[in-house]
């Protein structure tokens, strides 16, 4: 008798276990709070990037709180940020995204920054139909075939030709050299796009040296000697700030006198600090120029500097723009229904419709893929070590 009862309990439990969970899982939020997830690398390889993201997000939240909330359709909603650390690891970025979507029930996600995290995390966001915007990822895969994923920066296939054209027009050079990190996603991609664009302009073989190294190398003398002897007129190196300093200094020690040109990864406050006088007078392409900025850009830089003590780098500026895009998209929905699923869809639609958004990193319109059409800025490092606006290059057609 007892055993029969026990068996009955077991059977019942197993049935409950395998039945799809029906109760207590309704996706409704208490209408009244808008939650926005920030997926940032606060620890790990690139903590400075995470810091910039966090600070920009906090500044944005202050603005919203000062205004008494985010106004959507005539009603003010308080905003909450869920800032989570993804340790700069792909798997953690996926965990964080899953957590923010299913547990914290955020409306929109901003981040992750680096492509190695944004690509898998974007897959999660798309799977759960939650809009996500990456402020920094330049890998085409992040947004490819993912209607719910957007990004704020321009892509490498755009940046490569911009630089090739700029060098050709500015210096009238025909032979270039490239030095890049073969083990890192971003420099490798950009180096290849640059090479392709350069060879389109000057014919095959016009990139006279295409040298590579591996992440964390610190001695570039053999590659730089080759480049110096190759007869190149300009060196292009799409590296991060710590490597830029080493490359530029070593190149000058080895007798390289021609210009060195970089990409948006140079745009960190650390570049000039580490590189010093060697970097003065060099050019790179980026999203915005801090020195000599005007209007909203200047206002942002001044506020950030006053609050956190240093000039914001491009990650902070792009995060700021991403949050402003999110804000506009939420406001454009007209009203929030309180049904999270519906609201996420509406925000996504509104974001896809955004046209000519005036951000501090330029004017943006999203393509079908969720990539912005926007201008790049060429910056010159002045003799005072500041990033000076030199010219702006916009996509044609």
């Amino acid at each position, binding site marked *: 008798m007892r055993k029969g009862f026990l068996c009955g309990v*077991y059977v019942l439990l197993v049935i409950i276990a395998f039945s799809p969970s029906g109760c207590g899982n309704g996706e409704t939020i208490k209408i009244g709070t808008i939650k926005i997830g920030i997926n940032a690398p606060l620890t790990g390889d690139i903590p400075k990037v995470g810091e910039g993201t966090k600070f920009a997000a906090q500044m944005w939240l202050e603005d919203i709180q000062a205004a008494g909330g985010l106004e959507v359709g005539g009603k003010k909603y308080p905003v909450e940020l869920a800032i989570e650390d993804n340790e700069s690891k792909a*798997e953690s970025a996926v*965990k964080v995204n899953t*957590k923010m*979507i299913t547990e914290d029930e955020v409306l929109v996600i901003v981040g992750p920054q680096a492509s190695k995290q944004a*690509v898998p995390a974007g897959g999660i966001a798309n799977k759960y139909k939650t809009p996500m915007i990456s402020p920094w990822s330049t890998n085409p895969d992040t947004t490819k075939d993912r209607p719910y994923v957007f990004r704020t920066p321009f892509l490498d296939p755009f940046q490569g030709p911009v630089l090739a054209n700029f060098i050709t027009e500015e210096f009238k050079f025909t032979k270039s050299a490239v030095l890049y990190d*073969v*083990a890192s996603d971003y420099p490798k991609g950009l180096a290849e796009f640059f090479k392709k664009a350069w060879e389109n302009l000057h014919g095959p073989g016009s990139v006279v040296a295409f040298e590579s190294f591996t992440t964390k190398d610190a001695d570039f003398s053999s590659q730089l000697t080759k480049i110096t002897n190759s007869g190149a007129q300009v060196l292009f190196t799409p590296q991060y700030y710590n490597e830029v300093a080493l490359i530029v200094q070593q190149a000058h020690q080895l007798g390289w006198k021609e210009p060195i040109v970089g990409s948006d990864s140079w745009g960190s406050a650390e570049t000039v600090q580490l590189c010093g006088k060697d970097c003065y007078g060099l050019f790179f392409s980026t999203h915005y120029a801090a020195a000599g900025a005007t209007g909203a850009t200047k206002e942002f830089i001044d506020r950030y500097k006053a609050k956190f003590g240093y000039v914001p780098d491009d990650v902070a500026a792009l995060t700021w723009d991403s949050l402003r895009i999110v804000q506009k998209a939420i406001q454009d929905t007209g009203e929030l229904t309180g049904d999270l699923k519906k609201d996420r869809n509406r925000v996504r639609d509104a974001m896809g419709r955004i046209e000519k958004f005036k951000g501090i990193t330029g004017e943006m319109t999203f393509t079908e893929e969720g990539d912005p059409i926007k201008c790049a800025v060429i910056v010159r490092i002045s003799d005072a070590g500041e990033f000076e606006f030199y010219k702006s290059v916009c996509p044609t057609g």
Partner: protein
Amino acid sequence: MRAWIRTSTSAFSQVPLLGWLFGALIAVALEHLVGTPLALALGLPKIPVLFGFVIMLKKPILIPSAILYVLCIYVVPIGVTTRLSISRTNRLAAELFRSPIVISVAVHLALLYAILHMWAGINDYRLLVLKLTLIAIMVTLSLNVINGYMGEFSCSHPGFMALGAYGASVFTVVLFVDDRLFGAAILPPALGPFMFPIALILGGLVASLGALAVAIPSFRTRGDYLAIISLAFMFIVKSLIENLEFVRGPRGLSGQPDWANLPTVFLWTVICVWIINNFVRCTMGKALNAVRDNEMAAEAMTVNTRRTKIVAFLFSAFWAGVAGGLFAHVLGYVNPGTFGIQKLAEVLAMVYFGGLNSVYGAVVGAVSISLLGEVLRPLEIFKWIIIPLLLILVMIFRPTGLIAFKELNVTNLVKPKQNPDEEM
């Protein structure tokens, strides 16, 4: 009072595994039924996701509610049901024990799966954490074969994982997915889930093949030198994949189909634990211990040390490769940067935290480090102070890890803990 505590703890020592599983099942069922109303009544926004720890760190004001919730849903129901059902579960366990051991084990595993399924059914975040924890158990266990049972210090497991991850991913992506890299799918995707085990085994075999590069030098070197060779192997694998354009180099390979669901991962973990447990307890496993303790003596006692080493490395790499394949399919993306020093540190921490030379230890280490990493995430940088600190403390007080040198004996595990006829 003290007497009461003593009697109740001694009573709990008589609870068979079946009883604990039964109690846990009741607890997760309870969470399904009354979890949400209870959480709301206690002032929590929703069901605490990882036993309330995350919410405690984020909003300290909710600590009492979170503790109360855990007490109401987990601690009290498990305690009460296991205590009350001691005689019944023991009798049932005894009944099962009389039947072939396979049936008894199958019932236990089915119960365990039901518990995990229900626990993870509350929230997809739990599901993901659970899947990655199970995969971590596989990797830790496979590393334990080398570092624990054979006593070498292998640093190559992230490399084996990478080989397995890429091997399995290339197989599934080429055959079943339309993508830009390899063109259209060759076989209909409907066949995919059935071929998934083949993909995983293939990943494991690729990893085994790579392991030859470490196994052969191990004939002549030991200790630190072999550790350096294995470390070099890990970097070779990483650089190799970074330079292989057909798997997209450092950009990473994405588009793996979503076949690594909970039953698949659970089943593979169970198979892995079962086979490794049998392996280390058979003659070959004892030969591993002999090689560890004194290679010369082992050789003199007719242990074929070369064969032992090569089998151990290939076997261990196979399971690391399978785990890597599952890992790639859980994330749907894999890049060479994932399998670097950071991953190595994580796996080694799991092995040494849990305990050398022990299947229990590997499970405990993998589960505790994975969960700690998740639970302490809100602390950001302090997480990287607390976890290493814990590791140091474990190393001071238990130099070989929490549960080291303990055999997993399945028969002991499932047998009833008291004679049912005695009590009444």
